[in-house]
């Protein structure tokens, strides 16, 4: 971690503090025609505005030899709580993707989308057009509360509606208030005299990113324990009765640094629907005041909770809230993947969950996802919902409109995923190369190859249709939430992964590092043997992750 001159806090803290509420010199840097990049300090700040400087790592070495700067471009991430978009918004999104983002929309693991490859001279225009479609990118990234997730489909539509309403309220309440966003991207006038205030955050915002998710049991598609705060919606008699509150979850770790680790959120108790916003705000404020501002690798809420203890944390929270959380309420999780194909909810509306390979909505010769979804958006009367697993739901289709949707889906191969084996449909990979600056190995681009080879093994052991969660990330930061998967590959170097095993399919157990720094051949050899033993010796109904945890990992420290 870069040290700052002011050794009390990390360099990023100094940048934030002197940024004038996230302005920095972003506007000037955008106007500099000599480079496609912006300086590092502005890069730190643009994250809060929802955009990252990246470069195409595939050509980095080549361009260095060509005496050209890296092929810089920007990634833009929107903030859409619960992942809900109207068809009109979809059409604009689609147009923007084709105009400025290489014809691709990337569905993320947090129910929103990203554009990649937007060059600097197009950045402002693109941001403006996103805002014109009544979306924002503010606080999609940065040391603030990020996109609030919410299980996108529930059998009882009223529960989904109420949970989503809470997600929206959380998102709104925890949104930064700075005028910088408006000024820089939307040509807003700076209000003088300057009266910027961040009533919740203060001028240095949070020590680190902050994430909230709302799960509606029995579906844990949001991986509710992987976030700083997880709300577990409790349904009673067809309505939303309140939430269990978990805190201190997070995935990110650093190779070789035992002071960093993934952690599952700890359930602190329960609250009413009306209390949820206050509870989240106060948890966030404890973290704002007690989180580590010196070492960014150690600045997430999970470390604050562990360093000071759950009891201390609860005590601090209670005193800030002025009330105690209620006892944990009963619930049960069944699955942390998406449910593909058509589902009907209690109100009679139909929803079609489409499998999006690698989350990448793009036209390929065999599947024209971008074009197909555009055509669909032209006729669809309901909404689109991004799922927590990089997929997309065509939501709210009336019975009589179903055939039209089906016809389009078929014409463009939109629901080709319906017929895939479960291990392929439930697999996830983070973006990684070539855009992610932190990637150490391939992930999204490698996933199909790996699944192909894993498929051969499963076939050989008669396990082709066995549900199995496989997740790959290009580095240990954990963007595809790999540490709760049954099989995870965590990138270490080109072609090398740490093999993690023993998560389960409900997302409430961390997996364990099985072996480090393996090549594909070594991974497949290891899995081959293990799958063989699993096929022969599994107990009735036992999943692979549970089997591995029981037999292969027992005795190892988790």
């Amino acid at each position, binding site marked *: 971690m*870069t*040290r700052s001159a002011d050794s009390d806090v990390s360099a990023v803290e100094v940048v934030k503090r002197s940024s004038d509420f996230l302005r920095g010199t972003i506007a000037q840097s955008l106007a500099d*025609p*000599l*480079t*496609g990049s912006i300086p590092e300090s502005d890069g730190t700040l643009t994250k809060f505005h929802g955009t990252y400087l990246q470069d195409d790592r595939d*050509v*980095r*070495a*080549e*361009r*260095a*030899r*060509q*005496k*050209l*700067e890296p*092929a810089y471009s920007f990634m833009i991430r929107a903030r859409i709580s619960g992942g809900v978009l109207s068809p009109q918004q979809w059409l604009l999104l689609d147009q923007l993707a084709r105009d400025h983002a290489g014809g691709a929309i990337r569905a993320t693991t947090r129910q929103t989308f990203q554009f990649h490859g937007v*060059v600097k*001279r197009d950045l402002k225009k693109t941001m403006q057009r996103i805002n014109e479609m009544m979306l924002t990118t503010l606080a999609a990234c940065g040391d603030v509360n990020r996109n609030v997730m919410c299980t996108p489909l529930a059998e009882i539509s009223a529960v989904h509606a109420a949970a989503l309403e809470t997600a929206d309220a959380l998102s709104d309440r925890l949104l930064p208030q700075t005028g910088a966003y408006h000024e820089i991207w939307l040509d807003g006038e700076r209000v003088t005299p300057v009266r910027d205030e961040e009533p919740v955050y203060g001028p240095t915002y949070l020590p680190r990113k902050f994430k909230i998710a709302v799960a509606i049991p029995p579906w844990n598609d949001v991986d509710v324990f992987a976030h700083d705060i997880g709300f577990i919606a409790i349904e009673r008699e067809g309505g939303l009765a309140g939430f269990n509150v978990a805190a201190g979850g997070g995935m990110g770790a650093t190779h*070789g640094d035992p002071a960093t680790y993934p952690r599952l959120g700890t359930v602190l108790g329960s609250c009413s629907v009306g209390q949820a916003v206050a509870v989240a705000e106060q948890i966030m404020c404890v973290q704002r005041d007690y989180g580590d501002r010196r070492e960014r690798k150690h600045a997430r809420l999970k470390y604050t909770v562990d360093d000071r203890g759950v009891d201390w944390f609860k005590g601090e929270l209670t005193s800030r809230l002025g009330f105690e959380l209620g006892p944990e309420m009963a619930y049960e999780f069944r699955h942390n993947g998406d449910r593909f194909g058509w589902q009907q909810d209690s109100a009679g509306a139909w929803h079609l969950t489409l499998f999006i390979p690698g989350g990448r909505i793009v036209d390929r010769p065999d599947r024209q996802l971008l074009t197909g979804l555009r055509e669909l958006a032209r006729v669809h009367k309901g909404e689109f919902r991004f799922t927590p697993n990089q997929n997309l739901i065509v939501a709210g289709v009336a019975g009589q409109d179903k055939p039209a949707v089906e016809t389009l889906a078929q014409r463009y191969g939109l629901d080709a995923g319906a017929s895939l084996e479960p291990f392929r449909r439930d697999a996830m990979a983070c973006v990684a190369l070539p855009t992610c600056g932190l990637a150490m190995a391939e992930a999204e681009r490698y996933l199909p190859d790996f699944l192909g080879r894993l498929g051969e093994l499963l076939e050989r052991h008669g396990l082709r249709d066995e549900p199995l969660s496989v997740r790959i990330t290009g580095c240990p930061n954990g963007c595809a939430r790999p540490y709760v998967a049954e099989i995870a590959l965590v990138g*270490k*170097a*080109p*072609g*090398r992964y740490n093999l993690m095993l023993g998560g389960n399919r409900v997302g409430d157990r961390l997996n364990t590092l099985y072996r*480090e*720094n393996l090549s594909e051949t070594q991974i497949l050899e290891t899995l081959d043997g293990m799958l063989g033993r699993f096929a022969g010796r599994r107990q009735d109904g036992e999943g692979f992750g549970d089997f591995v945890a029981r037999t292969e990992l027992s005795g190892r420290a988790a």
Partner: protein
Amino acid sequence: MSVTILKKSPSPGVPQGPDARLVADLNDFAGRLDQQQLWWASGYLAGLAASGAQAGKAQPAPAAEASPAPAWTIFYATETGNSRSIAEELLGQIQGLGVEARAVDLADFRPAQLKKETRALFVVATHGLGEPPDGTEAFFEFVLGDRGPTLDHLSYAVLALGDSSYEDYCETGRQLDARLEALGATRLADRVECDVDFEAPSEAWQQDMLARVEAERAEADAAPAGPAANGAAAPHLVPVGGRQYTRKDPFPATVLENQPITGRGSSKDVRHVVLSLEGSGLSYQPGDALGVWPTNPPQLVDQFLTLLELEADAEVRLDGESTTLGEALAHRLELTLLGRSFVQGYADRFDVAPLKALLDAEDRAPFNDYLADRQVIDVLADHPVALSAQDLTDTLKRLTPRLYSIASSLEANPDEVHVTIGVVRYTAFEREHFGSASNYLAAPGGTVPVYIAPNPRFRLPEDAAAPVIMIGAGTGVAPFRAFLEEREARGADGDNWLFFGDRNFHSDFLYQVEWARYRRDGLLTRHDVAFSRDQQDKVYVQDRIRERGVDVFDWLERGAHIYVCGDANHMAPDVHAALLDVIAQGLGRDCDAAEDYLRELKESNRYQRDVY
């Protein structure tokens, strides 16, 4: 270092050998010197002997100031910053001793400069699968590859950072350490390798290095100044046997590098070509051009043979000697450049009526239009005549060398010359066309016959403080690279302003990272660019000049010299017109006054052009 310069017992026959005590003293003294100091001492003592004097006795000692201790450079290769933080810490510590030092990121370092270093400490991480950190590839390719220079002036030590869970542990540090030694450099201390918990070993290494720096400083304080005490001058071109290479007798320069510098998706193919002048005795100044004798590319030769249905091994006579047609076409005859004289000769000799008509016409325009985008082969194809191998040989003109603005400063790149080659390849008249020299230079390998074409009319101001405005489009930017290298190497402190234009920012920003470094270092004061095809409306350098008119005029009033290089047909006249506008505005007067102003600039050599 332990050194013994004298044997304990002098060999028999040496008159008046030194006694044992003196030998011991001398060995003791020598043991404190490094290799360079030893060389210096030997010269010093020899000088004393020759002058018949004895040190410190009859003669006053030669003007002996305390020689400055050599400056240290801490080089680092980092991706995630660990190496940088170690290097910076060590830098502070060395400077704390009052010793001159700097820390340099190998990603920003011009490898050819390594020759100038005498004391280097390397902090080097390994990434990928045993590869150098991003951005430093060029340095490692240079040092580890064939271009690795002789480094016998260099003393060095390596701290290698890595992670032992990788197969190729600390590979980059290991390779560098071995290679530096192989290139003749002296290892100051064994390489230290650090695993992910690098703090303790790196701290110990830093302490070790500090002790060495300190010791050397103490010695330098004690030792008298000497000519070679502080680094050797960069080795310069040494003429072999005094031979002068010329246009007629060109030097076969080895190609050291042939690097495309336009990115993916470019509509052009531009190369940065580095040639070795080592041993040639050739020298040049920024502004000069390099003459290149091409070999016609094989595709071009084949086009002729195919069109005329001739055989490459047909015997022909050329200049009273016999050779084959293939040889003559490849090496002796001009296959592309089309001039009036060739057309005239062809038309007369073979009685080609339509060409004759075109040549004889009162109005020259149709003929010029005809020539504009044609090469020799187009004329032969348009007006076919049955030619024998000998006819063809007799008809074609002699091959002519091509000129390329030199893109390097000799000061900054000893023994090298760099050029920027736009590869000419286009399709017209249903045929692929190849530029002769540019395609020859773009095909890798071997040697290239070259000479220097001096251009005294394109020279940096003598006054190092004079401001300079450089205007170049496309490969026209080449000499400005040489200018800036030169101004940097000489420490010229005049302001520099570069206008550059090309088609696309993404792929055609020639030498982009170098300009950026000059901007950061403050050498390039201003930099304006125009990329014509990145937006709806075309924008060119002349538009930028007009936009910046007030400042341009201000610079001129401050004595700025203006240089224009590149396309003669469009860019140069358009820039000229823009300058006139800017001057007229600045003067608040009409175009005539501006013309006078610009003419005066020209006459005082402050407006120079190198256009082609």
